[in-house]
């Protein structure tokens, strides 16, 4: 429980910290980021505490991104955005700042000060082939996804539980941030 109590996102979901809720169902909640990159920047979060995407069950992944897509459409419709980004940072080197899986849905306008671009790196054919083979070695196992249940509350899929030790480990990791 320690990690959950220390988790800012769990506190928001539990209504212990006030927030502007945009959307809520059994699995997901979306709130407005009050210090967003642009007005209308939303966080979409699973209600269950999962530090990283790999721990989120497939069925919940599906729902969370469907909700994100709906919010992205709503941003286009209601806020006059010129674009939207769906952005996930997974792990500290990727820019993750909270140990609770979160999807950012960000309204965009030209010259809004946001940068999600990169400088392309030049790789040799050999380097490309090496990385291709390495990835394929792992991706050949992909192919079975947990099917979503019609009545999720009554037939919740079995989830791998996260041990307390692991939770605390992630919390420690995230506390290393500035």
């Amino acid at each position: 429980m320690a990690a959950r109590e220390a988790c800012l996102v769990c506190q928001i979901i539990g209504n212990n910290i006030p927030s502007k809720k945009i959307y809520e169902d059994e699995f997901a909640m979306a709130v407005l980021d009050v210090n967003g990159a642009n007005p209308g920047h939303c966080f979409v979060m699973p209600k269950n505490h999962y530090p990283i995407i790999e721990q989120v069950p497939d069925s919940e992944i599906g729902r969370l991104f469907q909700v994100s897509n709906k919010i992205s459409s709503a941003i286009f419709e209601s806020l006059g955005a010129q674009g939207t980004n769906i952005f996930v940072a997974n792990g500290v080197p990727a820019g993750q700042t909270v140990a609770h899986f979160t999807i950012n849905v960000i309204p965009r306008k030209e010259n809004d000060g946001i940068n999600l671009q990169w400088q392309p790196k030049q790789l040799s054919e050999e380097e490309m082939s090496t990385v291709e083979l390495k990835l394929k070695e792992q991706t050949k196992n992909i192919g079975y996804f947990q099917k979503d249940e019609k009545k999720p509350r009554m037939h919740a899929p079995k989830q791998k539980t996260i041990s307390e030790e692991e939770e605390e480990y992630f919390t420690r990791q995230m506390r290393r941030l500035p």
Partner: protein
Amino acid sequence: MAEQNISQEQLKALQEKIKNMSPEELKEFQKKQCVFCQIIAGKVQSRKVYEDEKALAILDINPSNPGHILLLTKEHYSIMPQVPDDEVAHVFMVAKALSNAMLRSIDAQGTNIIAANGVAAGQRAQHFMVHIIPRKENDGINFVLPQKSMEQKEIEAVGNRLIAALGGAAAKEEEKPVIPLKLQEPEKKEGKGSIDLDDISKILGVK
């Protein structure tokens, strides 16, 4: 390409033609112009790292980091709001699996998953795709998400507009999930072990 040499008049005629197209015709037209549809059809070469009936993952030829993956829907959609719910769910389940594969195979310490809708958001191709980027410390990628403060009034106003556009979803807690899911269960393949969280946490452990 021959199209680059067309005259001003021909260009106008073409624009007029596009204007008068039905949505189906327009989609067909975009498909023909779309390099990613050519890749999916196998007419343009690519390095495929994953493929199923709905999605294709290839290596980006201009990668932000080695192993940068473009995950495409096989169907042509210009932007994500056009993608049907079941395909959204499927594509991001695949994205999760690919992120996982990166952590295990190419020593990634983290991943970014990014979709861009519209030129202002950084979209460059007219085909919906998800970028999955392997990350390491000090890898030279500097994403900037500034923090802009909002006044309480603005938060309420913006929030309420979004809630209205979503059909008041936040207000109806009792309601079932708005999004019914109908996913096809792909063939079960052997060899898929359960996610080893210890493994991931080690990798994510940054040193």
